[in-house]
């Protein structure tokens, strides 16, 4: 389903979606992030890249798995806690971030469905916004099978045509959303389609950064596991969690018990984000750590994204959003790292 929505009608459409919880990019200080919005007028789709991707809505940093307490006979009791039934719409999803969710889908699916993830995922309708201009100077989606107007993972894709949006529904969920605001939409005309094509073409050209010959990289990485290259590259790494926490595709987590009362025992088992960049991620309680240094942890991040994930799920675990590059406190640039990998030893 393809429609045209006048920009001034956008808030009215959103108003029609009152049965949904609405998320949209919001500015706090200098940083953009996806937040729940109460007023449709507050939505500003003229935003730069959010610090965190909408991953944080589907896969929140803290998820309560279960509550435990002590029964009268002194034995533990547990109570499963699942996310509320609460359909939501996320506006302004960047195509790269939407694609990222298709990647985490493969992780949280499989033999064991992650109910928490899927409950939130299934309830969320993703309304994307094609990137007119690259939201970050470090965007490189084109290198990793993406594009600034990719539809992958989205329910609706909106494209800014100046005074109006070109709105394309891609799924049943999307159709339903458009139908709710039926009267605000118009049928696209030939000019609209032409404008759309023009903008899409232009937007691709604006993306400056590329990983060249990316196909060479996974096999090359496999050869480089024991290379001193990683020690060199990791010299400036400070082992913080920015690159992974901000990554829309990273999904690693920790499970821990948070005790609220110790007598009688009462508390919650929670999932929190974790990262392969922290040394406690893999350290055994014996003290042995299979990934004992920054080099092995940097290697894990790169190899997971560009070798293991490719081997397992036939896709790069990277959508080229550029967050890890922009926010790395010491300027580690995954594109440069991969460029060096590709040319290593030649």
């Amino acid at each position, binding site marked *: 389903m393809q429609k045209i929505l006048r920009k001034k009608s956008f808030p009215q459409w959103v108003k029609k979606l009152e049965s949904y919880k609405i998320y949209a990019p919001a500015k706090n200080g200098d940083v953009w992030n996806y937040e729940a919005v109460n007023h449709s007028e507050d939505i500003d789709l003229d935003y730069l890249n959010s610090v965190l991707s909408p991953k944080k809505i589907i896969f929140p940093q803290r998820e309560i798995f279960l509550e435990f307490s002590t029964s009268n006979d002194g034995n533990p009791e547990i109570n499963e806690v699942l996310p509320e039934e609460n359909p939501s719409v996320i506006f302004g999803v960047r195509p790269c971030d939407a694609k990222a969710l298709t990647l985490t889908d493969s992780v949280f699916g499989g033999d064991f469905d992650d109910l928490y993830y899927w409950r939130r995922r299934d309830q969320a309708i993703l309304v994307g916004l094609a990137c007119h201009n690259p939201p970050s100077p470090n965007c490189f989606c084109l290198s990793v099978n993406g594009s600034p107007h990719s539809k992958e993972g989205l329910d609706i894709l909106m494209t800014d045509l100046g005074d109006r949006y070109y709105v394309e529904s891609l799924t049943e969920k999307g159709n339903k959303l458009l139908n709710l605001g039926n009267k605000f939409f118009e049928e696209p005309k030939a000019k609209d389609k032409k404008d759309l094509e023009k903008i899409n073409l232009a937007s691709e050209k604006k993306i400056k950064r590329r990983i060249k010959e990316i196909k060479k990289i996974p096999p090359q990485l496999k050869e480089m596991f024991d290379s001193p290259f990683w020690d060199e590259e990791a010299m400036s790494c400070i082992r913080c969690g920015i690159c992974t926490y901000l990554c829309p595709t990273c999904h690693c987590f920790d499970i821990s018990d948070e005790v609220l009362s110790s007598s009688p025992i009462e508390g919650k088992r929670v999932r929190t984000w974790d990262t392969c960049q922290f040394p406690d991620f893999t350290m055994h309680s014996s003290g042995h750590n*299979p990934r004992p240094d920054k080099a092995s942890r940097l290697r894990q991040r790169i190899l997971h994204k560009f070798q293991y994930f490719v081997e397992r799920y036939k896709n790069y675990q990277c959508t080229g959003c550029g967050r890890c590059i922009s926010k790395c406190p010491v300027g580690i640039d995954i594109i440069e790292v991969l460029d060096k990998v590709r040319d290593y030893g030649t």
Partner: protein
Amino acid sequence: MEPNPYIPKLAKIIQIKEEVRGARPVKTFRTQFLSENGFSFRCGQCAMLSIFGRGESMISISSSPLVEDYLQFSILKMGRVTSSLHDLQEGDIIGVRGPYGNGFPIEKWKGKNLIFIGGGIGIAPMWSVLHTALGKKEDYGKISLIYGARTSNDIVFKEELEELRKKIEVHLSIDVEEPEWKEFVGFVPINVLEKKPSPENAIAVTCGPPIMIKYVIQNLEALGFKDEQIFTTVENKMKCGIGKCGRCNIGLHYVCQDGPVYSWAELKNLPQEY
């Protein structure tokens, strides 16, 4: 609705046995699920044990799937959760979820001689497969066990091992000399060279500390074992047990799902990150 893989089932501890005292204590726990629907498992698989308020720990099931009354876990006191497990008493309730992992391909081993080579607490995962094989002894050839610990005090399943001697060949060892000790003194890999198990129609299973496994495999290869004949288990830190939390991987493998059992032929081609 689909089962929630993160929610443990409650189980009661019906028996606790102190296997090893001292600085590296080991206790063996037998648990029974409170509800009817427990789970069935393959030998070599693991389960995630919970102490609510302390956390979870992945422990290999040391009883045989042939035993249906209980699950058995032999646990070395090591960290936060295992210390709490050691504090428990019979009748206490814990959480159990699983089973996880691939298990030993024991069906494929029919008709073969089985050599189990273990060190320390590494006997726990083998105990399950050993007893399963023993339960269907007619399906397998000769079964033998080479097992060692640091001191005689650190030997797990002491009494059971004596019983076992009546059924199969058991070779024990300790690392350093003790006055009463009559068997081999020295490291397990050396004992392997000493006892010279034949690679003929054989499968060797080895579990124990990584350094022991490394040299056992070297020595098995020296004895003529092929990579495909050697099986071992890998331990990595685990949280979810279902291939999602991302920490137990070796290359593209998630040990919790794709392991913990590997033939040396598989394992040697994976990155050395365990």
